[in-house]
């Protein structure tokens, strides 16, 4: 079971759209939601699960919207949350952005989608690629005398339609590793992990069979190639299309891919890696007069690699004024609405070290409320490089028509949740 009813509310709690799938929870129940939310927020006990009488509200917030599912049953929370996020994902693919405006502008499609996504409280077709085959935005503009049949429905493979055709058959493989880092105020690394994903962009005709070869350590040990450079992957997860039984047997990753973009697999590396960009900071606050900030950034990766689009966000007190900056490279700007200084470095080669100094004035009258200690966060992207050393050894593409298809591979390492606490 999932939800009795689904509501999309604006920030004030007014329903923009609702669908009462089951009819066992009155539509009026939602009026209690906002009050409850505010009350719990005030008490500091807000949770993504609220109750009024017998009705449970499971909610998420997206942009300026609340998506709320109601149920009376002691159901499965993660299923409902996953579904709500799926709804957001589907809407986003239709409208680019999901917010109050897009709901109002696309009233009809939203209703159509809500009808297809769920029936009688149970998730139905939630794959946006399949939905797009028969619910189209153009449908509202163009004349569609005859309705299309969702062909995918009768397929043996529910994620791919038959009869797909491309002039040029290609597959783009993106190997993306995100680095999550948490460093304490005294400079010791609290958490460092790498989350890898392999994303595919598939432009292939027909029903192709794909096989992906990686330098997977377990596979290498199985086949006695222990000496080659290999990678130990942990917590590997696959898209639904991958045949799990084959992977379990002989670590072969074989699948019939969906059309277009999708995430094939994800993995995790728990081995401690040296932080790729290391930050040392000194933030000195002289009450009533000024704040002085010194930030040193060091690229701790191979000299041949270059980090692009590096953004180092340094917190400043909310009452600071008259900023002055000095940087050894790149530029710094002050974002008063976010209480941040952002130091941008377009290209940052490995092994280099850069410096930024900032100076702010402080008002002589100190303000009342205390402020938290936000961390310094860093964003970056290092192309042609993976932390783990993972490699795509081959991608075999077999289709019964026997066409030749080209696989393209790209490697990127980027920042995930990359934070360094300040004292």
């Amino acid at each position, binding site marked *: 079971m999932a939800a009795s009813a689904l509501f999309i509310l604006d920030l004030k709690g007014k329903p923009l759209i609702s669908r009462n799938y089951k009819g066992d929870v009155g539509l009026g129940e939602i009026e209690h939601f906002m009050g409850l939310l505010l009350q719990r927020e005030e008490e500091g006990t807000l949770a993504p699960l609220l109750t009024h009488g017998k009705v449970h509200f499971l909610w998420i917030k997206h942009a300026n919207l609340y998506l709320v599912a109601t149920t009376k049953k002691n159901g*499965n929370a993660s299923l409902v949350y996953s579904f709500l996020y799926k709804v957001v994902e589907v809407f986003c693919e239709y409208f680019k952005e999901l917010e109050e405006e897009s709901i109002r502008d696309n009233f009809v499609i939203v209703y159509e989608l809500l009808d297809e996504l769920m029936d009688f409280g149970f998730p139905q077709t939630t*794959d946006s690629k399949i939905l797009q085959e028969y619910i189209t935005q153009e449908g509202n503009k163009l004349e*569609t005398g005859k309705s299309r049949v969702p062909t995918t429905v009768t397929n043996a493979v529910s994620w791919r339609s038959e009869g797909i055709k491309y002039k040029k058959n290609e597959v783009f493989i993106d190997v993306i590793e995100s680095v999550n880092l948490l460093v304490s105020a005294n400079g010791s690394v609290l*958490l460092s992990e790498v989350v890898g994903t392999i994303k595919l962009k598939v432009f292939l005709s027909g029903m192709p069979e794909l096989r992906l070869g990686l330098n997977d350590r377990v596979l290498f040990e199985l086949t006695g190639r222990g000496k080659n450079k290999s990678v130990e992957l942990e917590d590997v997860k696959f898209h639904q299309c991958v045949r*799990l039984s084959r992977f379990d047997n002989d670590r072969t990753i074989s699948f019939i891919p969906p059309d277009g973009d999708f995430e094939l697999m994800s993995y995790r590396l728990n081995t401690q890696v040296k932080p790729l960009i290391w930050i040392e900071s000194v933030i000195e606050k002289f009450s009533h007069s000024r704040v002085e900030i010194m930030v040193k950034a060091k690229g701790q990766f191979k000299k041949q690699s270059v980090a692009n689009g590096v953004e180092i966000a340094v917190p400043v007190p909310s009452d600071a004024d008259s900023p002055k900056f000095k940087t050894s490279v790149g530029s710094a700007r002050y974002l008063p609405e976010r209480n941040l200084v952002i130091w941008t470095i377009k290209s940052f080669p490995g092994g280099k070290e850069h410096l930024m100094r900032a100076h702010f004035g402080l008002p002589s009258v100190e303000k009342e409320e205390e402020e938290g200690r936000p961390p310094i966060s860093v964003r970056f992207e290092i192309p042609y490089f993976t932390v783990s050393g993972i490699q795509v050894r081959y991608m075999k593409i077999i289709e019964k028509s026997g066409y030749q298809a080209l696989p393209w591979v790209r490697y990127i390492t980027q920042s995930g949740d990359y934070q360094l606490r300040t004292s």
Partner: protein
Amino acid sequence: MPYLGGEDALRELRRALANPHVQADRLRYRAAVLRVIRHMAQGADVSGLFPEMVKASAAADVVQKKLVSLYVRAQAPRQPQLALLAVNTLRKDCAHPSPAVRGLALRSLCGLRMPGIQEYLRQPLLSGLRDKASYVRRAAVLGCAKLLKLQGDSEVDGALVNELYSLLRDQDPIVVVNCLRALEEILKKEGGVVINKPIAHHLLNRMADLDQWGQSEVLTFLLRYRPRSEEELFDILNLLDGYLKSSSPSVVMAATKLFLMLAREYPHVQTDVLVRVKGPLLSACTSESRELCFTALCHVRQILGSLPGHFSSHYKKFFCSYSEPHYIKCQKMEVLCELVNDENVQQVLEELKGYCTDVSVELAQGAIFAIGNIARTYTEQCVGILTELLGLQQEHITSAVVQAFRDLVWLCPQCTDAVCRALPSCEDAIQDSEGKQALIWLLGTHGEKVPNAPYVLEDFVENVKSEMFPAVKMELLTALVRLFLSRPAECQDMLGRLLYYCIEEEMDMAVRDRGLFYYRLLQSGVEEVKRVLCSPKSDPSLGLLEDQTERPVNTWASEFNTLALVYGRERWALVTAYQPAEPSYACSPCTDSRSRDTESLISEESKEILKAHPDTGNLTLISDVYLTAEEFEKTWLSLEMSCHLSLPWCGTVQPDAIQTALHVVHIQTIAMSKAGVQPWKAYLSAQDDTGCLFLTELLLEAADSEMQVSVKQSEAKPEALQTFLSVLRTVMGAVAGLGS
């Protein structure tokens, strides 16, 4: 909301809809329909356009059909007469050549929640179930469940149920899952869909084809299946192993629950399963979706309760990030408390210490209490940190630290000296009731070790008139009397003043009574006071304040992956306090976990049967006779037992349902135990039109035994007794049927 200019707008819309030129142009026609919908969404009354709208649905445009069906669905309950017009069009669409139109029409038809629609539904549904397009079959299958919900009381159609069971073999995965869902709803009264061996194995084989929603639901349905042999059990576990590592958190959760429940007799398998899902759970805990992360954290806490140390080596994953919402940080701190061990205690405490000075008061105090919790095992280090925090002289920090100290001293008396050394000078920084109470308690109980204790308490006595909280005054009385016993000279005078104030001037009755109580106690001599106040306290090892015993996995496995676990045991009990007991908890997994209304428990149909009974035979029970509990007891004791019998019973008792059912046949409930109490008892009374009383006791010793029924009669009327018993049997039979 009144819509301004509604009349004009309505007339204009009607004109547009009826205009043959508009009708001829599909785009314009659709635009007109859309305008009606927009008006409706704004709260305008557009019911007058019903005939025009129904006509609009006859157009070939699918989007327009959808819009109209939206309109009809909203208006139908208010205008059942007109809605019949729409029904005809929809029924016609059910035979449309396009499957999309057929499916849509069927779904709309079943979505009309209005009386009397059922007879129009049956035929289209039956042909829908056999439609060649799976899109239509999906809608038809769920339509069957909707149909039954509309009918409410009538018989479950056996043929339909069989049809649905056979559709479990459908080639479309969503049809399969929808069949399960529909059967579950339709067979609610019989305990839901039956998962026998062939069905279970069929579902296991289809798992790979299903989407994540289907997979997690099928895994939940499989909970109902009991493998015949150990071999089969392990085959199933092997088959499903991959789902423990699914990329969808809800599938991981559902699979874990199934594993835990199936392996309930193999603790080592359960432990192994929990080791295997460690990775997926940890990644859910760092999920980008806060809500999923929160849910996962709740489950991690539950697992830690049974397997302490399970996540100890991953403690850093539970460190809070600056931007996380409050509810996640709080869960993480609780998790940190539970996974602390010799290796990580240093780092965990260091981290928690950082949170103690957070700007959020709730978070800071939460962190302090967390350290207080850890202090039960790592006393010395924690007391050191807490003492250090007192130096900050922050109101909310000091208050929380003192409260943590109070709870700690109780459980770990060895740290009393260290705590007492830290206490002086705290009093200035405490303003809230909880903090004051804790400080006063500490000073009263361990005042002999705190040199300035009497002077601190004296300050409180001086200011007692302006004290806002009665609880603080009560605590002060107790503390001062205690301190008086150990340091009489310093306390005598102010104790006198306090007692005088409490007895003569205090307005709060509880405080006054407490004052009088101590005054009288003191009159009976110091030795007596000592005997009363200083006799041994309850032993903390009795687990009065803490429950550190490890809970076996099986105590919570059935709650895994439900809201109950996310709420936590206490909150869930609160949330469901006034709801009827859920049958699922005490029972085997055959009953699914869903709350049911008391009203719906007794279907209309059985109500009628129950009602019919009192009129048959020669017994008429009077409805408006009420006995008080005292009268009942007196009569009960004075009468001889007329009859004793036992009724078969299975599962838990649902007092609300029983009471409602008894009320229908005019049997009054005098008293009844709460759900889940063992032994469960109830006392009932009834009176017939001749004035003869029937007093009844129901007794259920333990779940799944027999219900013992004892009846006493005020006049010996064997015939009436037999009729009464048969009425009672019918009622209890009906209710018992619902319970299992």
